[in-house]
């Protein structure tokens, strides 16, 4: 295990209306891992990602990206939100959505130019969506929309990628395409944190895993900690039901 942590979360507590959804989370993600966050619905998986990215303000605790607060390290981080979190009827095209990934490095007011457009085209090509670049986003299938979101994260050219259920509602081909890109990113030394629902694919896709259910149950290499004991602790008596989903 390397001793350099890409993401470090200390004593993080997040509450909605005074009801804790994440309770005293300590988590250190080593550099270069492809990590799944698993846990039942309402376990706070998305909330964990959102609080690391400063989208949700925690009531206690701190987050560090390579040892510094997130707002100092924005450019090192890319984010793929849940596909369902946006309105796909928004009047825009695939390439335009991908270009949004460049807005962070551009900063306020400055407009994207040729360089940004080129980067967006390259990212679209990588996810196999170049042919759809000018298509209105509502005219894309669910899998294609997810690929566009992935391209938007690629264009951020980050060191750490946070993804919220990138496999949700995509067909098998797209799922394979996406996981191949994620594995490629890991090979290139990137760190990936992925909220994941399908427990059966965890050992195949990921090398690191975090079990979460409001509190952190366990975190570590898949080979060592992905076992019945931790699954039962995380999913409680519903563990079998969760597997069958």
């Amino acid at each position, binding site marked *: 295990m390397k001793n350099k942590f890409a993401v470090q979360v200390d004593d993080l507590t997040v509450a909605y*209306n005074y009801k804790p959804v994440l309770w005293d989370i300590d988590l250190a993600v080593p550099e270069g891992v492809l990590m799944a966050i698993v846990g039942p619905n309402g376990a706070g998986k998305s909330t964990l990602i*959102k609080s690391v*990215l*400063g*989208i949700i303000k925690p009531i206690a605790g701190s987050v560090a990206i390579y040892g510094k607060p997130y*707002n100092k390290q*924005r450019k090192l*981080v890319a*984010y793929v*939100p849940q596909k369902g*979190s*946006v*309105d796909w009827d*928004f*009047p*825009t*095209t695939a390439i335009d*959505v991908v270009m*949004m990934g460049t*807005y*962070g490095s*551009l900063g*306020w*007011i400055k*407009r*994207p130019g040729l360089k940004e457009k080129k980067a967006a085209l390259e990212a679209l090509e990588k996810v196999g969506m170049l*042919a759809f670049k000018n298509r*209105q986003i*509502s*005219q*894309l*299938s669910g899998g*294609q929309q997810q690929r566009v979101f992935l391209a*938007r994260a690629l264009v951020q050219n980050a060191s750490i990628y946070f993804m919220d259920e990138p496999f949700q509602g995509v*067909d098998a*081909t797209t799922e394979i395409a996406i996981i191949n890109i994620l594995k490629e990113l890991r090979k290139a030394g990137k760190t990936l944190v992925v909220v994941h629902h399908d427990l059966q694919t965890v050992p195949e896709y990921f090398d690191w895993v975090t079990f979460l259910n409001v509190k952190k149950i366990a975190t570590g290499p898949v080979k060592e900690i992905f076992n019945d004991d931790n699954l039962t602790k995380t999913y409680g008596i519903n563990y079998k039901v969760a597997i069958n989903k």
Partner: protein
Amino acid sequence: MTSPQIEIQMIAAVVAVACAIPGVFLILRKMALISDAISHSILPGIVAGFFITQDLNSPLLILLAALTGVITVILVEAIQKTGLVKEDTAIGLVFPALFSIGVIMIAKNANDVHLDIDAVLLGELAFAPFDRLILSGLDMGPKSLWLMGTILILSLGLLFLFFKELKVSTFDAGLSSALGISPIVMHYGLMSVSSVTVVGAFDAVGAILVVALMIAPAATAYLLTSDLKRMLLLSIVFGVFSAIAGYWLAHFLDASISGSMTTVLGVVFLMVYLFAPRKGLLSVLYRQKQQRTEVSLITFLLHLNNHSEEEERHINHLNEHINWQKIRAKTILDLAQKNNMVLIKDEIVFLTEKGKDFTQRALEYIMTNKDDRIEHMKDDFFLFRG
């Protein structure tokens, strides 16, 4: 045209453009109702501002009233955040309360001044040219034209500078926040611009029409385009068209200008709703009919594909077997023939090579649901269009 006529149309057009810009983003953020709330709840702000400044076009009054607009948004969000009521309920609670405070303030204190409920609700564009801006003895034109012109330039400038930020925070607030473009700042910025625009416009067009001018052009444009810039441009065009057409409608009917403008806005929306090329009602109905026909065609071709026996492919048999009425069966058969997909020999229907190929690909698409297999078929067939 007399010069007051030109001035009224200019004011109407400037108001329309100024309203259309924030309107587009309100629609895309699904916040159309907020403009209704703001337009009503600014009333106490306007009355208070009027007591202080004694001038409906004073910038101080505009700012005070716009502040009430922003307070409305904050109140709505605060009530919503309790989790006890939904957003529409919160809006319904806040704005009548603030509006009624304004109504009482007028009734108690402003009986002797030029500010009454009718003017607040409907505005009176016809009087706008009477209130003129005089600078060292020189007539510079109607005050409200200057006022709305300033507001318009301000909001055009902000739109130009922050177009990218408005776009990303509207489309994906989560990403926007992660990128460091605060959606909260953009939200309150938009709310402030909307409030200032509503306050500036309401003297001319009233609290009700101002909502129409914000929402109707944007809603109409939304049906016609899938490009944000074009949507902004179209909303402006619809707004200006309705403003000027509405003025002339009022002129010929001898009716209220603001009422006529709203009517034109409604008619324009209705026309586009019916006739828009892609999202319009007629084109949707036509497409559905086409799709039904094409599904029938594929069903028919599949049947031919599945049966090599001649008796299964006899014209009369097909008629009964697929259980379609004669006309429908004939339409489908004609369609298949016209596209060279079937041949008829001695009343027996055969699939041609093209027909076989098409059936095969259609089948493959239906089984695998893979888009790339039918990309090139999409132009021929409605069925596969997303």
